[in-house]
């Protein structure tokens, strides 16, 4: 049964907004992975300017939700970890962006 607290939260968070993606660091990671096929952790650290620890934690959450897939690959002889968006993650990101646009478009004009 929903508590009054969660009802309050629902009122302020429309159902179309995925709160997992709504976190700025995770949104940034997903945005970078959305425009590419895959990227390694070093690339994501340099582009997002997150620390290694932060990046690992956020990618871990996205992976647990099934939005991101982590693979170990070899670049030459060196192993490196590559992250990519899953189909589910790609669709969730698109839905999130549509939802955000809808919410912002519904806001009354300041004039």
């Amino acid at each position, binding site marked *: 049964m929903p508590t009054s607290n969660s009802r309050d939260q629902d009122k302020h968070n429309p159902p179309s907004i995925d709160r997992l993606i709504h976190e700025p660091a995770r*949104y940034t990671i997903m*945005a*970078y992975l*959305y*425009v*590419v*096929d*895959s*990227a*390694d*952790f*070093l*690339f*994501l*650290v*340099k*582009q997002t300017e997150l620390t*290694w*620890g932060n*990046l*690992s934690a956020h990618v871990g959450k996205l992976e647990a939700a099934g939005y991101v897939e982590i693979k170990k690959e070899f*670049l*030459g002889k*060196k192993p*490196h*970890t*590559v992250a990519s968006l899953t189909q589910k993650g790609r669709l969730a990101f698109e839905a999130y*962006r549509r939802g*955000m*646009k809808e919410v*912002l478009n519904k806001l009354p004009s300041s004039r």
Partner: protein
Amino acid sequence: MRTDTELKAIQRKVYMSFFQDGVWDIFLGLFILAWGLSILTEAAYLPGISFLGIYFSIWGIKKWLTYPRIGYVRFTSTSRRRITARFLILGTVVLLLGLLAGVLFGIGTRPQWLVDYFPLIFNGMLAAIVCFAAYWARANRFYVHAALIFLGAVIHQWLGVKWELGFIGAGSIILLIGLGILIIFLRRYPRVAEEVKDANQ
């Protein structure tokens, strides 16, 4: 508001991150330098050999120098196809231009206007190719490189400086710009120790 424009900006940032090492500038500088040296030494094969040699070594250099510093990204298949097609078009045009120059120099009788303005036409075509590359890659500094290449022919045409010296001068300046960018890149992005990466992946 997070819009498509923002995603395009991210895409552009990702794409541009692979031009910040100066390797393509060095490639262009060496290629232009090779043109100058080929005219100077009359070794017509030099630009072709240098173009193919440098072009195929670039990917190795990137793997050894760039990826360990800024990481590795695989572009989407659509982007990869588009990039490959553009490289092929530019490469083919450069090779055709080389062949055209060879044929025009080889034929016995040439119209006077072609003889008079050949350096201007040739450098203008090379500069136009570099402009196309700058536009496609959205790398604005390549417009400066194009201007330098064209300037080489202009000073030959109107100041009487030898044509090959224009090439050598432009090539050297572009090469120095590339080396400067490479030094800044190496300082800004030190190689990340494998232990750091391993501990955090």
